[in-house]
């Protein structure tokens, strides 16, 4: 077992595209770590650079206390699970799981025993004689995981491990993966574009954009106090309200009303106010320190609804309302922020001020 250290890692492809740009990151021993970001942000390139499938253009990669920057993938002692699972179609489940041991020239009987043991732990005991084409998506994923477990690597690298499963299976696979990682205690880095997946599974998350890391933190930190307005917008199943405002006499002036300013900022400072729809309380009567608007769209989310308040000419404000308390479209409504949940960002896509 070992942590993973990246320092100054840059990956520039021939042709001049920089996928990863001078990136520093430490993944602790035994940690379940998510690389999260929109497509094209460099997260997969970063994972492949850790695996050695891409060679870093600059910087160093270490696994444990070994510098592996110049080592071939096979010498790095990592196991990668690909998005399509990459099972060998001509081999049985048993031979697929035993493959890493076959490469290590472990005798047939010994490697099959080990593969059966690991396979049984992943609920594959009855499927050992089948070919991958005869398995369901979830079973294929477990075979790919079993193959990684058999290799007994220093670290697991998962590339979008859940994206090939249907929505319901994805939820159970999430729980399953998290339990497996905790039981084995092997350092794991996984790539995902799904913020809910990262929040649910990871011990810590690195949010990436344009080849750089925008924030590293626990799911609670990343969700509760996003470091930049990009992270704020990207994290959360309902997007955070990001509203233009100006500071006037210790208060924030927005298009939809005024709010107390949570920080001591000079007058006329232009800021972006970030409030999650979940952290706004809806009121159908006028109240102090609230954002006012006309109810536009009401979207049902299950046990709650997302109400969009249209404000004159400015960005609409989303509010999450308990089920049964949804207002009628067209009526006036007010949204009151919960104390301590108003975030301020430097105007124009900037960093967190308070």
């Amino acid at each position, binding site marked *: 077992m070992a942590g993973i250290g990246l320092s100054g890692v840059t990956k520039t492809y021939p042709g001049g595209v920089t996928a990863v740009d001078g990136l520093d990151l430490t993944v602790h021993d035994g940690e379940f770590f998510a690389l999260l970001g929109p497509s094209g942000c460099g997260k997969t390139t970063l994972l492949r650079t850790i695996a050695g499938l891409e060679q870093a253009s600059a910087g160093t990669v270490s696994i444990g206390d070994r510098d592996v920057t110049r080592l071939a993938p096979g010498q790095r002692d990592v196991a*990668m699970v690909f998005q*399509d699972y990459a099972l060998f179609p001509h081999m049985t489940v048993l031979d697929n799981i035993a493959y890493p041991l076959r490469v290590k020239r472990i005798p047939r009987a010994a490697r099959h025993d080990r593969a059966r043991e690991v396979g049984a732990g992943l609920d594959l005991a009855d499927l050992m004689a089948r070919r991958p084409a005869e398995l369901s998506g979830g079973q294929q994923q477990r075979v790919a995981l079993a193959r990684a477990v058999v290799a007994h690597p220093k670290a697991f690298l998962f590339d979008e491990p859940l994206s090939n499963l249907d929505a319901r299976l994805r939820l159970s696979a999430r729980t399953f993966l998290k339990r497996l990682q905790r039981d084995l205690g092997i350092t794991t880095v996984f790539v995902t574009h799904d913020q809910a997946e990262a929040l649910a599974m990871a011990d810590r998350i690195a949010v990436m954009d344009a080849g750089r890391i925008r924030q590293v933190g626990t799911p609670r930190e990343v969700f509760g106090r996003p470091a930049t307005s990009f992270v704020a917008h990207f994290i959360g199943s309902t997007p955070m309200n990001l509203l233009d405002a100006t500071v006037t006499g210790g208060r924030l002036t927005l298009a939809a009303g005024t709010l107390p300013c949570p920080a001591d900022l000079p007058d006329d400072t232009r800021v972006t106010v970030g409030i999650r729809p979940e952290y706004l309380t809806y009121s159908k009567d006028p109240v102090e320190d609230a954002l006012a608007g006309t109810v536009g769209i009401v979207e049902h989310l299950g046990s709650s609804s997302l109400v969009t308040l249209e404000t004159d000419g400015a960005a609409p404000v989303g509010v999450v309302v308990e089920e049964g308390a949804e207002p009628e479209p067209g009526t006036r409504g007010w949204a009151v922020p919960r104390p301590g949940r108003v975030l301020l960002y430097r105007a124009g896509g900037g960093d967190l001020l308070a």
Partner: protein
Amino acid sequence: MLFVAPALALIAAFLVFPALWTLYLGVLKYDLAGSNAAAPQFVGLGNYRDALTDPRFANSLLLTVAFVGLSAVLGQNVLGFLLAAVLRDAASWVRGVVNAVVLLAWILPGTVVVFLWQALLDRGGGTLNALLGTPGAAWTLDHPLATIVAFNIWRGTAFSMLLYSAALGAVPRSQLETARTYGAGPLRTLRDVVLPHIRGHVLTNTLLITLWTFNDFAPYMLTGGGPDHRSETLPVYVYRTSIEGGALGYGSAISLIMLIVNLAIALFYLRLLRRRSA
């Protein structure tokens, strides 16, 4: 039926009729000139008996097997695969140049290629002798089989290369990379991942180039079957006996034997292919 009639008529006229005519000729003592030209004699299976007991036929069959095995099954197959595998990761301009050169050998007319090879191998002013510093070495006389083998590899590798390029492109990259991260070297990856994926392509390619090479007449233009029958493959033997030697009936019988050998080869490969899908 009405719409396929023209096609059927053409096939009947140019494929079925000649085949049956060959079958008919094969049981006759029918020569290009002399009394047997005017009134062919029926000899039954006599021509076949003669062929199968003729040491010149046995020599020719053996030479053909060596020619096919060395130049097609081994030479074109392996070289074509290696070129495709190496070019896969090569810079695009290298790939372009090599593709163009190899394809050129494939699309040039046989007579032109033979002419180039005669210039290459010529005893007096040949390019190869100039390069190797061996003036006066008579390649086509001293090493006739090696000459036609090298010639056929040079000429036919392009097909295998193209076919394998396409086949290798269909091997999922993630499977190759999985093998790599578990520490599998190139040879092991080839055996465990690449070959199982392209097995069908290998068999199809080997079948095609085997049949083409078996029936290839171009060696005749390079060595004329000689010296002393040392490069006389079956198509050359048929030509020399029936056209040069005038024994049309005997030549037809050998042609039919070739056809049967071809069928046997095709059936053998098709069986292997079917076993894969089972």
